[in-house]
C-alpha cells in the first residue's frame, strides 16, 4: 500500500517539476510514507528525520511525512518535519509546499508565465488543488478526494500496484490501522477498471489490487458499488479478452469478508492469479477472540475448503503472530496444527510486539522474548516442511514464471510463478526481465526453486 502511495506522491512532485533521486544526500525535498504496523518502522522514521534535520545546517531541505501515522506520532512529527499530512490530503501537497515558501522547479522556470506562477502560489479551491496535483477534475472525484484520485507514476514497466480500498473497520487488537487509515472506503469501480484496463493494454504482466481489507471492497457503499467478487470478475474478463497475458493478484483479504463467489471468480477467469494470501494470525479460537479477529477457525477452514475445492493447485500464503499476549503453549500448538492442516506455501511470521495505539498495547506482553523466538523457529520449521512438499512436486516440471530482476551477485535472473513461488535461473539476458518464460525446475527449496529456461515467450 505504501509503495502505491509513494508512486502517487512521486507523480504529484513530478508535476511540480521535481525528479526522483536515489541518493537522499542530493534531495531538495525528502519524505517518508510511514508505516505504523510495527514500532521498528516508526523508530526508523525518527532516526531518519534526526539525520535530515542536521543536514539543514548545510543545505536547504524540505522534509515531509505521510502515510500510516498514529495521532501521538503525528503530534511529535509536527515538531520534526516541515510538512505532515494525511495521504487523503495529497492533492493539497503542492499548495502546502508553495505556502511553505518553496519555489518549485516549475514555479522557478522561465517558461512558466506569471499567471501560472500565481496559480502555483495560491491554489485557493479544491478544484485548483486537484489540478495542481495532477488529479482528476473535481466533477469526477468523490469529496473529499482520496489518494487514488492522483494518477501515479509507475516505477515498473511490467508490474503495478493499484489501491482499490483504504482503511479498516475490523479493530484487531494488535493493530493500529483503524486509527491511522480510518474507516473502510472503496474506490469507484469505474476508476479501477479504467486504470487496470490501461495497464493491461500497456503490457503489464502483474497487477496487484491493494487494500487493508481488500475483499471488503464495496461494503461501505451498501449496495451502490460492485462487490469484490463482481469487480474481480470484471477485471478478469477484461484481462482474458485482451489478448495479453497478465496475472491479477489482490492483498490482503480478511477471512471474515471472504465469500465463495470471490473464489469462483478466480476459478472462472484465467487472468486472476491462483494465489491467495489469507491471514490467519493464530490457529487458536481463543487467541482469535483476544485478537478481535471476528472469525473462528471453523470459518477460516470453510474458506480454505472453497480454495482447495475450486482452485486445486493454488498456492496459499498467510500471516501469523507468535507470542501474542496470553498465548499459551497449547494455543501455540493449535497454530502449528493450522500450518500442517492448511499446508501454506508461505507464512509471514512475526513475533508479537505491542504497538502503541493498538488496543493490546495496554495488555501485558507476557510471553518472554526467548519463548517467542523459540515459537518463531518451531513454526518456521513446520512451515518449511509443508512448503517443501509443494515445491518438491514442481521438480522436473515446466512452470511459467514472470522474470522480475537480476541478482547482481551470482548471475541469476529471478522472478515468481503465478503462485508466487520464487524461481531463478542462470542467464545473462536481462531483456527477459518483465517477460513470462517457461522454466524446467531442476532443484527446489521450501520457498523457492531453480531451473533452466525451456521456452522464451515473446508477446505479440
Amino acid at each position, binding site marked *: 500500500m505504501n509503495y502505491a502511495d509513494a508512486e502517487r506522491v512521486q507523480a504529484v512532485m513530478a508535476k511540480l517539476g521535481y525528479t526522483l533521486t536515489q541518493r537522499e544526500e542530493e534531495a531538495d525535498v525528502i519524505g517518508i510514507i510511514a508505516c505504523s504496523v510495527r514500532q521498528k518502522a516508526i523508530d526508523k522514521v525518527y532516526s531518519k528525520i534526526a539525520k535530515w534535520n542536521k543536514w539543514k545546517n548545510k543545505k536547504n531541505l524540505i522534509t515531509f511525512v505521510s502515510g500510516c501515522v498514529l*495521532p*501521538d506520532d*503525528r*503530534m511529535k512529527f509536527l515538531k520534526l518535519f516541515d510538512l505532515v499530512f494525511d495521504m487523503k490530503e495529497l492533492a493539497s501537497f503542492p499548495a502546502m509546499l508553495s505556502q511553505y515558501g518553496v519555489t518549485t522547479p516549475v514555479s522557478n522556470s522561465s517558461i512558466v508565465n506569471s499567471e501560472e506562477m500565481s496559480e502555483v502560489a495560491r491554489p485557493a479551491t479544491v478544484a485548483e488543488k486537484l489540478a495542481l496535483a495532477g488529479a482528476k477534475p473535481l466533477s469526477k472525484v*468523490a*469529496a*473529499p478526494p482520496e489518494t487514488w484520485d492522483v494518477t501515479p507514476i509507475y516505477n515498473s514497466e511490467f508490474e503495478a500496484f493499484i489501491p482499490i480500498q483504504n482503511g479498516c*473497520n475490523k*479493530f484487531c*487488537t494488535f493493530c493500529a490501522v483503524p*486509527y491511522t487509515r*480510518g*474507516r*473502510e*472506503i472503496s474506490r469507484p469501480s469505474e476508476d479501477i477498471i479504467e486504470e487496470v484496463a490501461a495497464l493491461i493494454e500497456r503490457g503489464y504482466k502483474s497487477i496487484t489490487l491493494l487494500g487493508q481489507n481488500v475483499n471488503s471492497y464495496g461494503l*461501505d*457503499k*451498501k449496495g*451502490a458499488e460492485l462487490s469484490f467478487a463482481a469487480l474481480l470478475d470484471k477485471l478478469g474478463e477484461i484481462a482474458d479478452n485482451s489478448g495479453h497475458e497478465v496475472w491479477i493478484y489482490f492483498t490482503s483479504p480478511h477471512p*471474515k469478508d471472504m465469500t465463495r463467489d470471490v473464489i469462483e471468480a478466480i476459478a472462472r477467469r484465467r487472468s486472476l492469479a491462483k494465489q491467495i494470501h489469507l491471514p490467519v494470525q493464530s490457529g487458536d*479460537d*481463543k487467541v482469535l*477472540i*483476544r485478537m*478481535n479477529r*471476528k472469525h*473462528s477457525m*471453523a*470459518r477460516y477452514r470453510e474458506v480454505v475448503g472453497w480454495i482447495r475445492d475450486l482452485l486445486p493447485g493454488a498456492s496459499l500464503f498467510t500471516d501469523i503472530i507468535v507470542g501474542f499476549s496470553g498465548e499459551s503453549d497449547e494455543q501455540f500448538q493449535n497454530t502449528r496444527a493450522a500450518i500442517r492442516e492448511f499446508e501454506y506455501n508461505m507464512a509471514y511470521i512475526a513475533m508479537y510486539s505491542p504497538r502503541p495505539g493498538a*488496543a*493490546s498495547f*495496554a*495488555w501485558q506482553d507476557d510471553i518472554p522474548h526467548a519463548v517467542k523466538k523459540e515459537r518463531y523457529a518451531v513454526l518456521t520449521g513446520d512451515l518449511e516442511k509443508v512448503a517443501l512438499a509443494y515445491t518438491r512436486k514442481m521438480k522436473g516440471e515446466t512452470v511459467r514464471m514472470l522474470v522480475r530482476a537480476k541478482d547482481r551477485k551470482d548471475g541469476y535472473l529471478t522472478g515468481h510463478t503465478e503462485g508466487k513461488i520464487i524461481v531463478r535461473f542462470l542467464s545473462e539476458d536481462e531483456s527477459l526481465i518483465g517477460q513470462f518464460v517457461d522454466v524446467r525446475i531442476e532443484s527446489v527449496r521450501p520457498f523457492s526453486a531453480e531451473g533452466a529456461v525451456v521456452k522464451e515467450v515473446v508477446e505479440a
Partner: protein
Amino acid sequence: MQTRSFNLHTIIEKRVLTQAAFILRMERKGIEFVAGQHIQVGPPNGIHTREYSIYSSPEDDYIEILVRQVDDGLVSPALNKLGVGDSVVINDAVGYFTIAEELIKDAKFLFIASGTGISPFHSFVKSYPGLDYKLLHGVRYANETYERDDYEAGRYLACTSQDKEGDFHGRVTDYLSKNPVSPDTLCYLCGNCDMIHDAFDILEAQGLRPENLFTEVYF
C-alpha cells in the same frame, strides 16, 4: 453514500449511574447504525478517541454510549469532564456484533455481559421488541447493574461477585457452570476478554457449537 470522517456532536443529556459510570446522550446527526455496532468517540480538542458500543436504538433520534471512567485512560476521564452543551467527536458506526435479521423472531438468545459490555445488549433489547432473550450481567456490586429496569422482568439477571445484593452471588461463569445452557441457544458474549474465554469454554463443554457463540471483546 459518502463515508463521514469525525464530526462534532453536542451532548444533550448526561446520566450519572455510579461514581465511575455514566451515559452520554448526543445529537444523532444522521449517524446510521445497526444495534450492536460501535462508534469512535473522543473529546473535541484531543487527539485520542475510543470505541464505544452504542447503547441506544437505531429508532432513537439521539445516540447514547455507556462509559466507565478508567482513571489512567486517555479518553474516558476527558469525556467525564464534559457536560450538556459540550461537544464530542464521533465517526461512523461499524462493527459485526449484530443479530442477523432472520434470527430476530425465532431464535433463543443468551446475552452474557461483564460491566459496560451490557451496552450492545441494551441496544438489542430496545431495538427488537419481542426478542426471546435472557441477559446475564456480571458486575462487582449490585449498584453497577446500570439501568436494569429497562429489561423485561425475569430476563435480566445480575451476577455480583463482590456483594450478595445481586440475583446471583458469583461470576457469570459460576452461574453458567451451575445452570447449563440449552445447545440450541445463540450466545452473545461481550466485555472483558478473560470472562469471554472462560464462558466460551464452559458453553462449548455444555455442547454449544462455536459458530453459535458470538463475541465482542472490550479492551
